[in-house]
């Protein structure tokens, strides 16, 4: 029996596909305005209540202790060194909250990106006539665009609010690395979470939790078995991803990173390489079962 | 013309279409130079494969009952005497009747007798459907 051959047809191009994925990862457009509004309202409410209830201080004294902030791996950094009598800076707190909100959002955003399409029901996505690894990455990239947009918007809202109420006195002491990290950290967290959703199983949230507990176990065991090594890792702004990504936000919020710009870049490079490689591997391999 | 087929019948569908065209010609609903419905129309109407319709039309053309005018459709051939067509139709009816008779174990004479009796109004049964 001879083989028939396909007629020649045009192949799809990536630009319109990327645009389609941008729409797809955003979801229903009419809901978006409400999402933004809710985030802003939540932020203001949280800011106000936090300020009142805890008297959130990010005191100026913290920033004076620039070079030797002791930060344990999972601590919230300088919050240890709260000085209730010190100066309260709502402006800084607003930026802090914006950063925290976008980190949380970027961790959860893959759920939006893959909504309705857990790995076990992704036939439609995979039946499309394009290379699957590229298709996965296009979807993740499109979702990443929204993570960036949302993160920048949140920080902008915070900065504008601070400016409006004249609480910008400490901004001058923040380094460019700090501001840049408000964008890069959510993107990296989003990339990490996306790995789970791209490859995953039918239960990505189980993977997320499993990963979290496994990591905790490694950290705890590591700290018990080889405390010196663990301390080196924990203190390294490059090797400890928490310090690289969240450190500037929590612990070394002010001037600490001025002297560590090089380390910050190294940390970003290291962890973005690791996460992107993980994503690439996740997109290029598929469970045998499928 | 309306083509009627029975998809649950044992008779191949293309032959049923041939039968139907013959019938239409015999009873006069299709006359010389009338066009047959297009292959697509017939296929869509009957929910059947267009190839089957084509096969039927080819068969009709082979028998000289219709001819194809390129780009215009399939037309009933005028030369053919409708008496011939009637004869052909009667023949296929006869075949069916004979097969049925045989299935029921009757021979030709018994069948003919029954037909005569029925045609003469000899039967008073009313349960015919």
């Amino acid at each position, binding site marked *: 029996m001879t*083989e028939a051959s396909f007629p020649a047809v045009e192949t799809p191009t990536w630009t319109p596909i990327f645009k389609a994925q941008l729409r797809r990862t955003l979801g229903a457009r009419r809901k978006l305005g409400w999402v933004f509004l809710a985030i802003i309202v939540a932020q203001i409410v949280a800011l106000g209540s936090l300020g009142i209830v805890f008297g959130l201080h990010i005191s100026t004294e913290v920033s004076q202790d620039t070079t030797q902030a002791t930060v344990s791996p999972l601590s919230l950094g300088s919050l240890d060194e709260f000085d209730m009598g010190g100066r309260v800076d709502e402006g800084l707190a607003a930026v802090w909250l914006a950063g925290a909100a976008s980190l949380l959002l970027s961790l959860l955003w893959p759920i939006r990106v893959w909504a309705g399409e857990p790995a076990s029901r992704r036939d*439609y996505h995979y039946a499309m006539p394009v290379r699957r690894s590229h298709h996965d990455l296009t979807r993740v990239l499109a979702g990443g665009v929204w993570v960036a947009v949302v993160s920048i918007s949140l920080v902008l809202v915070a900065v504008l609010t601070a400016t409006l109420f004249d609480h910008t006195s400490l901004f001058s002491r923040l380094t460019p690395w700090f501001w840049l990290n408000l964008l890069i950290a959510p993107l990296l967290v989003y990339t990490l979470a996306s790995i789970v959703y791209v490859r995953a199983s039918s239960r990505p949230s189980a993977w997320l939790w499993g990963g979290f507990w496994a990591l905790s176990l490694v950290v705890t065991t590591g700290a018990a078995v080889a405390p010196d090594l663990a301390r080196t890792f924990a203190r390294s702004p490059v090797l400890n991803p928490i310090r690289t990504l969240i450190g500037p936000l929590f612990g070394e919020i002010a001037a600490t990173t001025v002297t560590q710009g090089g380390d910050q870049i190294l940390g970003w490079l290291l962890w973005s390489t690791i996460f992107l490689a993980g994503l690439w591997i996740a997109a290029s391999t598929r469970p045998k079962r499928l | 013309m309306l083509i009627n087929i029975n998809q*649950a019948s*044992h008779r191949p*569908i293309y032959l049923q279409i041939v039968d139907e065209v013959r019938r239409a010609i015999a009873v006069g609903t299709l006359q010389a130079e009338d066009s047959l419905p297009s292959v697509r129309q017939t296929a869509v109407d*009957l929910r059947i494969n267009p190839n089957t319709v084509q096969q039927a039309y080819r068969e009709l053309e082979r028998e000289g009952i219709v001819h194809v005018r390129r780009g215009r459709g399939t037309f009933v051939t005028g030369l053919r005497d409708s008496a011939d067509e009637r004869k052909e139709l009667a023949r296929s009816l006869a075949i069916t009747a004979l097969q049925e008779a045989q299935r029921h174990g009757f021979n030709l004479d018994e069948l003919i007798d029954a037909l005569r009796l029925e045609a003469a109004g000899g039967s008073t049964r009313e349960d015919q459907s």
Partner: protein
Amino acid sequence: MISELHNPLAGAAAVSTSALCKRYGTQIALDCLDLNVPEGAVYILVGPNGAGKTTLLRTLLDLCRADSGQAQLFGLSSTQDGPAVRSQIGYVPDSPDLSFTDYKVGELLRHHSVYFPQWDSDYAKRLTTSLEVNLDSRCSTLSKGQVRRVQLVQALAHRPALLLLDEPTDGLDPLVRDRVMGLVAEHLDTSPTTVLISTHLVHEVEGLGDHLGVLRNGRLIAQLERSELDRRLLVARGEVSDGWDLAPPFPVLSHTHRGREHAWTLWTDGQPIEDRLAATGITVRSVESLTLEGATRALLAMETSS
């Protein structure tokens, strides 16, 4: 087992698999499957639920990987040339699931069309009209049958060279089923297409199918052209005298009798059989070919009894 039930089909192959095997744990989904769909065929793949139909279609799209063996579609490999293969396929999956729950149907079709540059929007519009698909409905609000209709539009509107329809009428009401069959018939005439329909409701596709593949427990127990079936798979009815203990001189797929009256489903050589049956002492009353549905039933029955 009658080997002739697996005659290679004539014509250029649109889809061919060789020794395709797939198991899930201990359960065998595909058992050395040699599927063979000629170009331009309307191939009806039939079998009971769980026979492997869905697995087979998903393997052709590389949505699942076979453990061994391979599948060629129009000369391309299902696994190596995935994108090129899938760009020529219109697929109605087994699950009535649109994934894009927050999209309107119109938005979904626009999204879909991006992936198929040859998408015919006029045709899509006609399809949505005749299938009564409401473009403004949200995908999450659609019933099973409405999802099926959207999936049919998605599969047909780019006029692919190959249609893979997995239970395409599943969940549709009788009226729409009938309309779908009309649309498929029209599609066959307007676009050169090879169709592989998986179904367990053969009577619905009785008029469309010209090839039949019967799948059971992951094995193709028969793969035949319709005309071959019409010619060779016959039901003979007749009577025998008391004490008759011969058999028809052909492979018997099934045999039933009540008293003296017998019915045999026979795989014949395609030549007239009445005289040869009579020679064994059978008083032949009728010899008929089967519908696709009847043939399916006979072939499936053969498999269980042998």
